[in-house]
């Protein structure tokens, strides 16, 4: 039961944070590039790399993983909105922008995941 509540709590915070990042980026930058989703995905990749590598010990580690990794990072990051944004850019004949967006997100995400894990290894 506690497990589900931890995932639920993480999701309750992660998803609206992604939404707010999107709104904020849209009116701050006025860009076609979806900076909000990009920031949410990149940030979640960094945090999840850190948590997955750092919170490995016993019961506390398990709970931190459910709250922060499965719940918070999982809901903060997204593939569905990301893919729909790519489809929208493609439909608007912004294929170059779509390709850059895809490449930038995947590269930054994988890179930051390694970075987060490296920081966790250095700290713990």
């Amino acid at each position, binding site marked *: 039961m506690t497990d589900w509540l931890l995932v639920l709590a993480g*999701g309750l915070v992660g998803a609206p944070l992604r*939404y707010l990042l999107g709104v904020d980026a849209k009116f701050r930058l006025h860009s076609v590039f979806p900076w909000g989703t990009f920031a949410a995905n990149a940030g979640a990749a960094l945090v*999840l790399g850190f948590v997955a590598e750092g919170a490995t010990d016993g019961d506390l580690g398990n709970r931190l993983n459910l709250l922060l990794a499965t*719940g918070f*990072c*999982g809901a903060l*990051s997204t*593939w569905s909105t990301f893919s729909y944004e790519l489809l929208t850019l493609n439909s608007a004949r912004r294929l170059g922008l779509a390709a850059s967006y895809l490449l930038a997100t995947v590269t930054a995400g*994988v890179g930051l995941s390694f970075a987060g894990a490296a920081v966790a290894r250095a700290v713990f």
Partner: protein
Amino acid sequence: MAQKMRLHRHSHPDHHPGVQLPVVVAVAVGGAAGACARYAAERLWPTGTFAFPWTILLINAVGCFLMGILMVTLKLRFPGAPRLISPLLGTGVLGGFTSFSHYTDNVRQLFDNHQPGYAVSYLVLTVAAALAAVTAGAFAAHFAFGRSYAAQGEAS
């Protein structure tokens, strides 16, 4: 952030989309439900650290497919739907169900576990599956509501 947004709204009253609390709540509730659904799938079909992460791959593909259906259906069939439906189901449920960070962390762990073949194929296969799924979903909804797919030419 709220403080900055308030200041910004005063300086650019025409451009600010506004942060509406009901929308934030809808996204939060949907996101929590989506995250729990993903957790349920991970418990039902666990993949070990050294195995190919099929569960997360399928979660992401299914979420992209449903997002394609949802967004096009709302646009073509229910343009007058309550304004909280899209934030609740799209940004919330499907956004919370799919996870980009789990994807990147799976890639990292496969590399760290000396399985570069798995890592690269998972990396590429997820991108291909997500793009194919969202396109198929959007196409299916266009087909179902009798509009040609090519008619969707505008950016949102």
